[in-house]
């Protein structure tokens, strides 16, 4: 175990900006990417469902 | 006024529709600034010295690249005719087109420049001056460029001819723009250069749309 306290951990021996700047951006992007992809998927699913609905309505007319 | 907004909106929409349009002008800027070190060698001291010049030349070229497409597509497909036939005054509509051009090409450059400055090892103060200079300078580039674009319209081989017409006119912007950063780096203060740039910009805002419109009318005949 390298760290005496949480504060020490976050200070990263004076390299906090650099270490957390890297890890932070990395985490951010790696969380954002799957969310964006999931959103893309839900968008297309939604429009597909809407089309389907329109089709069934057309058929009922 | 409504018509002007329509022109701006449509041009932005077209830029978005062509998707790559905005980003490629930007990436061209990025790539050209990255090419210079490859041609020149990786010495930080040398690179720092040429940074303002390189960034300005790259901004100038990036703006210039898109110029031939400022009016040419509109000329080819008759939009320009329709603009001239619109009840709204042509000069105003053209100003709208120039504004849209700046938003899609100039503004992204201004926003990207600090990152490139870092690559060339510039400090925060110099970066600030550079951004200020670009903020004044890129609209100037769009305004002057529009004149060149209008003059070469319908002239075959116009795409390359533009650069010939426009680059000499860009020289003052280049000198004051790059000069501002250099003056700051050498401790002289950039205020003088920046206010000269601002004066040029004010001048161009008055005269460039007028000259552009006149040139366009000639092309339309």
């Amino acid at each position: 175990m390298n760290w005496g306290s949480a504060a020490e951990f976050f200070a990263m021996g004076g390299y906090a900006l650099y270490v957390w700047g890297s890890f932070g951006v990395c985490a951010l992007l790696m969380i954002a990417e799957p969310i964006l992809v999931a959103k893309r998927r839900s968008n297309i699913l939604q429009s597909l469902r809407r089309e389907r609905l329109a089709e069934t309505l057309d058929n009922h007319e | 006024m409504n018509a002007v907004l329509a022109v701006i909106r449509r041009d932005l929409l077209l830029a978005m529709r062509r998707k790559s349009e905005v980003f490629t002008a930007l990436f061209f800027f990025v790539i050209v600034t990255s090419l210079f070190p490859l041609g020149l060698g990786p010495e930080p001291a040398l690179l720092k010295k040429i940074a303002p010049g390189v960034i300005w030349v790259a901004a100038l070229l990036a703006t210039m690249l898109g110029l031939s497409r400022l009016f040419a597509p509109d000329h080819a497909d008759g939009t320009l005719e329709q603009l001239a036939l619109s009840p709204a005054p042509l000069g105003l509509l053209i100003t709208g087109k120039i504004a849209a051009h700046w938003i899609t090409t100039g503004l992204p450059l201004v926003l990207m420049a600090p990152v490139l400055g870092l690559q060339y090892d510039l400090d925060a103060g110099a970066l600030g001056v550079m951004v200020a200079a670009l903020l004044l300078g890129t609209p100037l580039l769009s305004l002057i460029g529009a004149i060149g674009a209008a003059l070469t319209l319908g002239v075959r081989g116009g795409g390359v001819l533009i650069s010939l017409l426009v680059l000499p006119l860009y020289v003052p912007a280049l000198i004051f723009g790059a000069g501002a950063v250099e003056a700051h780096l050498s401790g002289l203060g950039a205020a003088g250069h920046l206010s000269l740039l601002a004066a040029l910009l004010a001048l161009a805002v008055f005269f460039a749309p007028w000259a552009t419109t006149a040139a366009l009318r000639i092309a339309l005949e």
Partner: protein
Amino acid sequence: MLTARHLACVRGERRLFSGLDFAVGAGQWLHVQGENGAGKTSLLRILAGLAPPAAGEILWHGEPIGRLGEDYRRELLFLGHHSAVKEELTPLENLLFAARLDECALSEAAALKALARFGLKGREALPVRFLSAGQKRRVLLARLAVRQARLWILDEPFTALDVKAVDMLSALIVEHVEGGGIAILTSHQTIPLPGGQVLKI
């Protein structure tokens, strides 16, 4: 009332026509005829004020169009071979933009209706680039159904259109003319319209 007096047009060193006189009044239409290269397109562009004539003058209600400027342009709708249809935009976007440029209010619903009338239903949201030759023309012509203009100047409006579209367009022109409008057309096909002056150049 559009009057042309002693119009002449010179392209390069070739005199295409000269001493052309005619007048078209409200409720009339003019069919400009001539061989390929006779100068029909050139004449229409001159009438629209896009190019100056080599000699002569054009009057709109007795006033030279150069002096009228905006007032003339507001009454005019000129459609040439490619009039401002952007290949990247959809028919709907193209039509809406044209309306805004003409400073006439057009709701999206009205635009959709106009496009449907021109047989573009189902293609409203497809970039014009993908459309067929005839469909592209229809996008352009849809402006006729939307814009309120007294004077229509149309350069070969019937090209590339199929039979149904030709009929529809003719009906539209008849309606315009009967409503007191003026139309000036060129076409190599016989125009299925009643009445009409003929101008041979």
